[in-house]
């Protein structure tokens, strides 16, 4: 399906795509912990254009995973609003996909069967389904591993298989929760490039959480920087560079310094937090 489509320029047909917009407004999420409520996300406002790639970075525990789970509808208990193309999110749906931090392939199914999982509830004729599966395996470079079981794959291959599964039913929005977190630096760079290519080919709206600022900048049209306790959006950084990008671009380096500064900023007094970042003396 995607093979014969010409590569899209980043700016041009993203505007032409009209579905896949996510609008988050006034979103708050509380968890009850030991009898008292703890605010994990506080007043999140974010508007994502169709086909945009948004990266989210932030310290551990600031609610990034929680935000993604809310967007895909695995958790529906929240205040505020999440809308996908003007419909309020209330539960999971095939138009929203998620790549988990751990790949979550079913260990009892082959890779191909795992990809098929995404297509089970879509009315596709059998031969078409087979084709979609093999196309997506090819997309992530796993054509030869359709019959392998997940435990026979390397970590990076499993993560790519999970991405293939998530893409197979062509969701309008794909959330990715540290999809490359478990990979070594080299594989990581390769899969990043692959992810960029896939995104450019498929034109899906992607929201990716990562701990790696380089990765966030390399892939994201915008980078959302979050701060913890409660989780808030501290800053949104525009990355005004066309895709595919050059890692050596000076702009990326400048933005990286800015974001790192934001992330390692001394917590304000009124935060009531005792956490400091390693390597920096508490003042």
């Amino acid at each position, binding site marked *: 399906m995607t093979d014969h489509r010409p590569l899209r320029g980043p700016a041009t047909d993203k505007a032409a795509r009209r579905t896949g917009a996510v609008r988050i407004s006034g979103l708050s999420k509380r968890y009850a912990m030991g009898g008292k409520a703890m605010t994990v996300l506080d007043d999140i406002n974010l508007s994502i254009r169709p086909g945009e790639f948004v990266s989210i970075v932030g310290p551990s525990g600031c609610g990034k995973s929680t935000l993604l789970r809310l967007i895909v509808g*695995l958790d529906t208990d929240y205040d505020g609003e999440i809308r996908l193309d003007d419909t309020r999110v209330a539960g*999971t749906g095939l138009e929203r996909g998620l790549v988990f931090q751990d790949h979550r392939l*079913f260990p009892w199914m082959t890779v191909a069967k795992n990809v098929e*999982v995404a297509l*089970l*509830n879509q009315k596709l004729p059998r031969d078409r389904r087979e084709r979609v599966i093999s196309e997506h395996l090819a997309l992530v470079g796993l054509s030869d591993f359709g019959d392998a*079981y997940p435990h026979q794959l390397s970590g990076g291959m499993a993560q790519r298989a999970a991405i293939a599964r998530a893409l197979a*039913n062509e969701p309008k929005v794909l959330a990715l929760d540290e999809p490359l977190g478990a990979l070594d630096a080299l594989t990581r760079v390769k899969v990043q490039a692959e992810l960029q290519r896939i995104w450019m080919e498929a034109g899906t709206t992607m929201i990716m959480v990562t701990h790696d600022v380089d990765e966030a900048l390399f892939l994201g049209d915008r980078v959302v920087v979050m701060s913890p306790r409660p989780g808030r959006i501290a800053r949104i950084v525009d990355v005004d560079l066309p895709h595919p990008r050059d890692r050596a671009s000076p702009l990326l380096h400048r933005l990286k310094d800015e974001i790192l500064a934001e992330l390692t900023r001394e917590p304000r007094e009124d935060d009531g937090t005792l956490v400091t970042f390693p390597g920096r003396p508490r003042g």
Partner: protein
Amino acid sequence: MKRLASFALALAFPALVLGWWEWESRQGLGHAYAFAPLEQIARSFLEMLADGRLALHAGASLQRALTALLIGGTIGIVAGVATGLSRVLDRTASPLITVMRQVPILGWLPLVALWFGNGDGAKLLLVSLSAFYPTVLNTQKGMQAIEQRYAEVGRLYGFTRSQSLRMIAWPSALPLIFTGISQALAFAWIATIGVELLFSASAGLGTEMMAAQVAARTDIVLVCVACVGVMGFTLNQLFALLRTRLLRWQPATAK
């Protein structure tokens, strides 16, 4: 050299026991009654092999154990799936199973004999019961321990209840179900020998052993004991092989 030494040591103990046995058997008639000479044991073995007696009894026991495994195991898996999925059924059936299980399997024997006589049906009932317990308990445990992580994947792709059952609950319970079946196999084999010892009616290794005991034929008893051991071990190994084949998707370390 080292291998040889450990091999020699491994043989030393049984050799010692056999030597002592042989020595005892030569201490006059009174002793030979219990300690059948080794040569006699070997001769009985060959004889039983030749006239088909061993095959007949071993076959009868094997058939009984496997039939009961099929019956008890199937009911156990079905009941385990049902109680694993439904809280109501779990609450109703589990206490009953727990209470019943306190009675050692052969303790039911007099009652079963009064109700159903001591024919093949009664034997099969008891052996099936012994196979039922481990399958139902393990299946239930497997079905209840569905990993939330995989259930979320199902929700993401809009799985129906039957899809979740077939593609998540059942396969993730399978390793435990296999554990249950392999326990059931061991229990069924023990129970088979037990009921045959106690209900001496038709063919079977237990029946033959009991008859040999009454006739004071230690040699025949020993041949049967060895046969019981070898068969139990072989069944176990064959099942382990089957399990490895069917659970190919498990990484080797998880087995």
